[in-house]
């Protein structure tokens, strides 16, 4: 399958330079793909899809085709990140997560940053993700966000920007590992001389962190991953991580608070659990502390947590740092706590809470991407240039009614990568979500989830809205061993 007719269409292409020649980092990959016979690449693509079915990595489809299962679309052309680019991403993410962690600690203990007027108090206190129940919490070693997934995008100029921080229960890392596995199973020769850094040790890193936060005096802690259950869309990931860490996968109904500790119901009676990697949101964690209607969590668990007899990752309350309005202040947050300039810039962001910025947004709705502060998964979003007058009108009213809840960003022309479309290649927009682990130090997994907007021209990469994914190759530098 030749690249002859492939067009970069003026976008930043991850594989090709503007003159149509492959980037130096992609040259080996390009040659390998170009050398394949007609149809061979498509057979590999089909083999990968079949492998996903065989491995049962599927999700249920509701509605018309109820009962059928689908795989998350996967494209076998890898996305390449060079060692130099990664170096900057790695440093930038460590800096950012370090600062955000200090920020969360400060917000729940002292609020110095508010008193110093760096962020308006009103913004924090009105945030849906601010948990007054967490005020005064002191998680072990001061770490709140043990696991972070940060969404990065590249604009026309090839510059990486942080689009969004996810500090609650970021998902997707299992697909990073699984995509690599599928590639190795179905297309192994592509790795020859590619110098790709491995991602397979993520569960070991995560497990080490979970062990490290065990309550004092517990040398071999029982670790459990708390899932909302088998019907949750991320259940595959939950079972995947539990399996590869060798820890228990529990649901709320398996856990109970007894005698001041958290216990799980086993075939031999109640057994204590020391560390919980929880994949349910704060809101649902404990109906005695948070939402009283929650059936998912463990009543009383927050009291055990406060007494230090169970550890939670992430700590409750971290959502305050990924509020989309707070996002706009992250450069200031980095400066405030670390006295450093951000290594990875934010996308320029207008906060509708500020009157002059709001006016500017409302006057230019057709140029901006508008986002609701507390939505995710690509919901509650207006993509101005692709919107209808009706949609813009609706957002105008919504912003007027609740300006605190909206931000606006210029429409970026996200970078593109080639994907296989029938018998040829076409460019599609992508983002990149690397995963950051915070234990004794901060570790960035050299890889990440490359999400692809499969619809031609679309900028929405979320899997719930027609997005797919790719294997992400972070290349080792010459000096750096794999």
């Amino acid at each position: 399958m030749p690249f002859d007719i492939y067009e970069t269409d003026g976008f930043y292409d991850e594989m090709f330079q503007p003159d149509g020649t492959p980037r130096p980092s992609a040259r080996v990959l390009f040659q390998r793909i170009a050398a394949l016979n007609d149809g061979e690449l498509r057979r590999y693509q089909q083999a990968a899809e079949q492998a996903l079915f065989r491995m049962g990595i599927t999700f249920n489809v509701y509605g018309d085709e109820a009962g059928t299962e689908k795989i998350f679309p996967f494209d076998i052309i890898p996305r390449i990140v060079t060692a130099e680019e990664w170096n900057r991403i790695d440093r930038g993410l460590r800096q950012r997560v370090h600062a955000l962690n200090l920020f969360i600690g400060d917000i729940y203990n002292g609020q110095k940053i508010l008193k110093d007027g760096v962020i308006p108090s009103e913004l924090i206190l009105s945030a849906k993700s601010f948990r007054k129940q967490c005020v005064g919490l002191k998680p072990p070693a001061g770490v709140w966000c043990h696991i972070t997934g940060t969404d990065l995008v590249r604009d026309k100029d090839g510059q990486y920007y942080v689009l969004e921080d996810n500090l609650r229960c970021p998902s997707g890392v299992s697909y990073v590992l699984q995509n690599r596995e599928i590639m190795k199973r179905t297309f192994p020769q592509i790795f020859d001389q590619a110098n790709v850094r491995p991602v397979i040790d993520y569960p070991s890193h995560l497990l080490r962190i979970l062990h490290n936060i065990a309550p004092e005096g517990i040398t071999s802690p029982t670790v459990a991953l708390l899932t909302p259950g088998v019907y949750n869309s991320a259940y595959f990931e939950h079972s995947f991580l539990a399996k590869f860490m060798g820890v228990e996968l529990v649901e709320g109904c398996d856990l109970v608070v007894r005698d001041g500790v958290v216990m799980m119901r086993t075939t031999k009676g109640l057994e204590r659990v020391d560390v919980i990697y929880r994949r349910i949101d704060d809101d649902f964690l404990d109906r005695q502390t948070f939402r009283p209607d929650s059936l998912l969590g463990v009543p009383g668990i927050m009291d055990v947590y406060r007494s230090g007899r169970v550890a939670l990752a992430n700590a409750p309350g971290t959502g305050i740092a990924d509020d989309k309005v707070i996002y706009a202040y992250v450069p200031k947050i980095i400066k405030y706590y670390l006295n450093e300039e951000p290594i990875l810039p934010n996308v320029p962001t207008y906060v509708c809470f500020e009157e002059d910025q709001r006016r500017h947004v409302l006057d230019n709705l057709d140029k901006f991407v508008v986002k609701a502060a507390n939505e995710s998964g690509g919901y509650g979003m207006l993509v101005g240039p692709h919107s209808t007058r009706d949609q813009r009108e609706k957002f105008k009213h919504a912003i007027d009614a609740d300006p605190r809840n909206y931000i606006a960003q210029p429409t970026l022309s996200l970078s593109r990568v080639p994907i296989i479309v029938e018998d040829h290649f076409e460019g599609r927009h992508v983002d990149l979500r690397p995963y950051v682990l915070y234990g004794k130090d901060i570790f960035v997994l050299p890889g990440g989830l490359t999400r692809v907007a499969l619809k031609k021209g679309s900028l929405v990469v979320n899997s719930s809205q027609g997005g797919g994914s790719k294997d992400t190759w972070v290349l080792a530098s010459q000096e750096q061993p794999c």
Partner: protein
Amino acid sequence: MLSRVAESLYWMSRYVERAENVARFIDVNTWLQLDLPGNYEEQWLPLVSTTGDESLFAKHYKEALKSNVIRFLIFDTRNPNSVNASIMAARENARIARQYITLEMWEQINRFYLMMQGAARSFEAGYEPSQDFFGDVTSASHLFLGITDATMSHNEGWHFCRLGRMIERADKTSRILDAKYFLLLPSVESVGTPYDDIMWAAVLRSTSALEMYRKRFQEISPMRIVEFLVLDREFPRAVHYCVNAAEESLRAISGTKPGTFRNPAEQQLGRISADLNYTQVRDIIACGLHEFMDDLQVGLNRAGGAIYNTFFALQPIPPVPHYAAGRNE
């Protein structure tokens, strides 16, 4: 291990075993029809009796035609004991226990499921399942069993798998014997039609027992067959073998010595096993085979209930009173 996961392992195995047995019944009955003369009426209803779902069948189908019975027992998801529904249930249980079972086990269950989905699609398109299909179901089940034995530590979870499988198999062997016996031959003394041998051989074949039986007893005789399928301690589909193996796994799980019990599950299963230890085939015939099988099935159901209560039931634990928890606001 977690009670919820233990229960899923137990049911995962039970459902795979169930699917295999139902497929066997149909396979053998199809063969049987080929051996019987043309004026001999085809017998499909006894198959439905074997799984104990006559009333459900009657609710959805008018006649016990071959095609109806095959649809009902193999593909119909309205029948929770159909092969299709069993494999779906096995897979859902495997999904719950996915972090506990091995990747190879999960992939085999999943392949089994995809195979059934494919077969169901071609059945809907008008193709009757081929004879190979039944063999494929049996092989898929055996492959799963082999993968389980070869890749999973023989730990508590593995014993729950075995426990479920053995209880299911004991139940199914007793049912097929009961149904055939009851429907084909009202009394054991009545020397039946010239086709007796063929019919009884079919019973043996549907439990994969024909060859092993021949090695043991050579001649086909109803008494001997009952003896072999109920009381044999070495044949892996015989009721006695299954009950002993289930009991062994139960003891491995709780660490109880043979001859004693610590929980109702061990008591129930120990009782059945002791009965079988001291029963001879003429006792069974004297008491009536059907009555004996009925008692056995009731006993196995009780054992299943006791296993549930002992290991799986999430006993409600009253929440800690709010005021006692020492909240610091």
